[in-house]
């Protein structure tokens, strides 16, 4: 089974980090994985996006025609990338910043007010982690325990103090083991 995901937003929203976390978690579970970011001037304040593929067999192409799950963090990303969701696939929408509805009717839409939720728990900068929890829970491609383990690797050393608050943000939507 091969699962293809696409994360999009603006630079600084932590979009690439969300994709990397899923990729790390899948690798720790012994799955095959590729992570392909957009790069170049786009990185500096423009749009940022990445493709993550998780599979139980070697992955030939790290690029995708369509995705089983698309995560959009800002309005232009929804407009540009909602067409990428495969029919029956999943679309995660950050409704804190996106105030219009997707046009697709053949996909499963999950609305997450990531920035508002993050603010409510006092972690305004962790909107991406809130969304990551919702995505991990929603797609079920990696276990909750693996994602939490990735957090402890990402937030270690000089960033160790950030681990606990980010686990809190992650666990708003990520349940179980």
């Amino acid at each position, binding site marked *: 089974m091969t699962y293809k995901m696409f994360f999009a937003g603006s630079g600084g929203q932590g979009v690439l980090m969300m994709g990397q976390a899923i990729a790390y978690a899948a690798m720790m579970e012994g799955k095959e*994985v*590729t992570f392909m970011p957009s*790069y170049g001037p786009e990185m500096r304040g423009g749009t940022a996006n990445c493709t993550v593929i998780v599979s139980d067999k070697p992955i030939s192409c790290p690029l995708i025609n369509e995705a089983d799950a698309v995560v959009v963090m800002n309005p232009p990303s929804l407009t540009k990338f909602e067409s990428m969701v495969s029919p029956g696939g999943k679309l995660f929408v950050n409704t804190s910043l996106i105030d219009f509805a997707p046009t697709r009717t053949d996909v499963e839409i999950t609305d997450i007010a990531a920035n508002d939720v993050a603010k409510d728990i006092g972690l305004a900068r962790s909107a991406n982690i809130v969304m990551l929890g919702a995505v991990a829970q929603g797609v079920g491609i990696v276990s909750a325990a693996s994602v939490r383990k990735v957090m402890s690797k990402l937030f270690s050393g000089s960033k160790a103090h950030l681990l606990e608050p980010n686990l809190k943000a992650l666990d708003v939507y990520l349940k179980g083991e």
Partner: protein
Amino acid sequence: MSEKVLMKGNEAFGEAAIRGGARFYFGYPITPQNEVPEFMSRELNKRGGQFVQAESELAAVNMAYGAAAAGGRVFISTSSPGFALMQEGMSFMASAEIPVVAMNVSRGGPGVGGIQPGQADYFQATRGGGNGDYHIPVFAPSTLQEAVDMIYEAFEIADKYRNPVLILADGMMGQMMEPVVLPEQKEQLQSEDIASRKPWALTGWGGKEKRSTVVSLHMKPDVLEECVEKLFVKYRAAEKELVRYETHDLEGAQVVFVAFGTMARIVSEAMEMLGEQGIKAGMIRPQSLWPYPYCAFDEIDTATTKVVISTELSMGQMLQDVNIGVCGRWPTDLIYRTGGIVPTSLEIVERTKKILEGLKK
């Protein structure tokens, strides 16, 4: 075997070079390989080597020439326009028989071009971008694991042939992340051991039997001819020993793709999609671009194959080699995107079907 780690391509390239024993890296910023010099500046000094940010690719390649002439194990990396500047050094190093491993994380061209992935440096890489009669072995990985393994081995090849070796990747491989198993750290050649291990290298002649000089000037034509012929004895051996390729599903194939690097990955997905539509496709994946695996084309299924398609991120540069390999036995065609555009597997499927329809007419 060590465990898998998830690494960005450019960082994996640097790590593979350090583990391959590289102690010296000279680089200049150019997208999409900036993470290589950044990684080397973080890692190399604390792991017994030296990183130097050169003032240009011209200087970087000549620092590499000097350091390798002095017996150091040297890695350099750049991207397309930067590699154009390095050609002076590649020619000099080939002439003076200096081993260096170079990496081109290539992008779209010509000129400044763009920063997205490209394979339009094929001629520059395989035909010798510098002046004179020489060759550079060129290896083209298509996964990060393969890139790591190729870089690791490239130092041994460079030393064995006393010639520069090029790893040709592209922006996609530099930027993507994939799990890799890293090889063991090789023993680093320390400066004080160079004179005994590499007697040809420049160390000062104290304690040596013979004074070393590193030269590429031969004013007398007969002497120069002799030197070039000596290089070509080496290249003839390399043509036999360094040919590398993979073939996939050639038996019973109607269409045979030829693709390397990033394109080979997209083609393998397109092959699956074509198979689902009842079109049997195979692939030749050159891993060495010089020497080119012309012999691979002898494995094509004569009974079933209707067309051989060079699939590349350039305007048919590799098609020339494909035509040499095919040698008139099948029709050939080209599927390309250029300028930094990487085609989708769907696009390759559609174009392939059009080519097959065209053959029926």
